[in-house]
């Protein structure tokens, strides 16, 4: 056995992902609306076993990214490689296999579970779709249900008989039953009451270890991200503006938008009005993205170049190579 660490192949390689949503018809009275530019060139690698958090405000493209990575949207351009295999072309031979190997967990466990199916049927559905024989299904369902803390007696019940936290366990079991390698969780906690959130966080952490999972964890809650993520990508208007190891990004943010998010995040015991307000106004709509740096209208450090030239996401002088940002004046943040 060699002790030489072979450079590990990333589980997921994402390059220049673009997804725009044109308006199907001209608006009322024949007005033409510009397309919604949800993703404007998203690039990152995800190592096996890693938890990458994606944070940003509504309209930044984080949910579109999740759905595109799960092959629910076809990207306009760019490339996704899963375990080295390109997957972005529609109907590719490996499409179904990759859909099995990467699974989504949605925000709302009330809307995402079919109310007319029993828990056992809900959890078994991915196995049916992927053609797993009936006699194997029951055992797989029971195994994964036990792993998420659902008793055998609960498999015959219907979703309405469960609380929000229990429903999210069902949704997690459904995602895991096909034995995926990558789990994409889109705000899996935000519909849950505070007192049950930690149960679900602990469950996700346990399952990651016991099943060797890789997570993409989308959230607007920075305290959860600080707790759970290995790396964080901050998105703004369809682009990653900063990407780095969690501790490094939280302790020394490079992008002024990241700094603004951290300043604005509510924390226990942090009084309002004691911090400088570091982002003015509101984000532009993704149908009308400003030229130059998309953040420039709100930025406290704006210079002339920011209005004209879009900063590239890349390494910054004096900062480790794995912490990158898209800002012309990172060093002054």
């Amino acid at each position: 056995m060699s002790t030489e660490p072979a450079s590990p192949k990333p589980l997921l390689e994402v390059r220049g992902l673009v997804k725009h949503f044109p308006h199907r018809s001209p608006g009322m009275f024949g007005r033409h609306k510009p397309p919604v530019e949800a993703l404007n060139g998203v690039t990152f690698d995800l190592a096996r076993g890693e938890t990458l958090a994606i944070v940003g405000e509504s309209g930044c493209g984080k949910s579109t990214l999740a759905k595109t990575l799960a092959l629910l949207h076809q990207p306009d351009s760019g490339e996704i490689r899963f375990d080295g295999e390109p997957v972005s072309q529609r109907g590719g031979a490996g499409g179904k296999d990759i859909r099995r190997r990467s699974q989504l967990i949605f925000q709302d466990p009330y809307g995402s579970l079919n109310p007319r199916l029993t828990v056992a049927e809900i959890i078994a559905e991915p196995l049916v779709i992927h053609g797993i024989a009936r006699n194997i299904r029951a055992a797989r369902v029971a195994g994964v249900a036990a792993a998420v803390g659902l008793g055998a007696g609960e498999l015959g019940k219907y979703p309405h008989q469960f609380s929000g936290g229990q429903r999210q366990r069902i949704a997690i079991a459904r995602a895991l039953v096909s034995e995926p390698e990558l789990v994409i969780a889109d705000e899996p906690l935000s519909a849950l009451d505070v007192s049950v959130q930690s149960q679900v966080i602990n469950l996700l952490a346990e399952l990651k270890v016991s099943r060797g999972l890789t997570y993409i964890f989308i959230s607007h809650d920075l305290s959860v991200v600080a707790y759970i993520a290995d790396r964080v990508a901050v998105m703004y208007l369809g682009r990653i503006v900063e990407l780095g190891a969690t501790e490094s990004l939280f302790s020394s943010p490079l992008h002024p938008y990241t700094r603004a998010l951290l300043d604005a995040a509510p924390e226990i015991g942090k009084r309002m009005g004691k911090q400088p307000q570091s982002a003015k106004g509101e984000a532009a709509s993704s149908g009308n993205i400003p030229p130059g740096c998309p953040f420039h209208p709100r930025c406290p450090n704006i210079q002339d170049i920011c209005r004209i030239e879009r900063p590239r996401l890349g390494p910054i002088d004096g900062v480790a190579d794995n912490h990158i940002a898209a800002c012309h004046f990172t060093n002054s943040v």
Partner: protein
Amino acid sequence: MSLNGTTSLASHAGATALLQVTDLAVSFPAGDGGDLRIVDGISLALEKGKTLGLVGESGCGKSITALALLGLVPAPGRITGGQILFGGTDLRQLPETRMRALRGNRIAMIFQEPATALNPVFTIGAQIAEAYRLHNVASRHEARARAIRLLERVGIPGAAQRFDAYPHQLSGGMRQRCMIAMALICTPEILIADEPTTALDTTIQAQILELILDIQDEFGMAILFISHNLATVSAVADDILVMYAGRAAEQAPSDILVSAPNHPYTRGLLQTLPSGARRGEKLPSLPGSVGPEDLALAGCRFQGRCDLADDKCHGAIPPPVQIAPGHISACFRAGER
């Protein structure tokens, strides 16, 4: 027993309270013909220039408590007990016509979702000015001028033009600013804010919280700030009242409540919050969840999730115990900590 407790709460607020709620109860008919007390024995005081935070999970009765103060409990629910004293009058005894004269005038409210609270077919300016003309003798022109001044005050750029905008033409943050302008136009003595920033993005939330506090400095109103998020409430409130399943669990000054919580529920909530400092450790969690069935429990409604619960908790309702001035905990074991 509970009488002693409410007395201690009332005496803490003293004579300065603008609005004093004592032992409020709100009931909804249950399927079996009985009543479900979804708010049970809530006492609170709102003081001029101060903010009281009301925290709890969905279904704990915090929004119903707020609606009860305005006489707006949705049918078939009704107020079944207690007193709501405002300027020497019990609002429960007030006829609807006089209650209407108070609502939106001396006591105003802003809601979580400004998109549904605003009428989509009227301009925001017309809605704000209407709130003023409803309670004051003023010409259209005067009301418009006042509305524009307030839109400027709450930070709407180009207020004179935005006066004629419809709600759908504004962002969520701008709509919430309009709701605040509408609530303020009659310079209320009390502002009730029910999850005012929950639907907003983080950076916009910070701006709106900042605005609410600035306006309180300027107008001196009392604020009842309701949220499920303890961190948000601790950022703005002077005192915090924690509710659990319709009852008061604990009340304390904000900094005390988050640094030295007494009630097992408050302590549990704070311990379960994830943070960067806790990376790698397993988060403590409260077992189970809260549901309507807890309202029917004899004794403490938190008993099923509490690691301190014993026979006493199953049999009797724990009375509020004052453990320090302004710090009250409704737990039989409150004195042990």
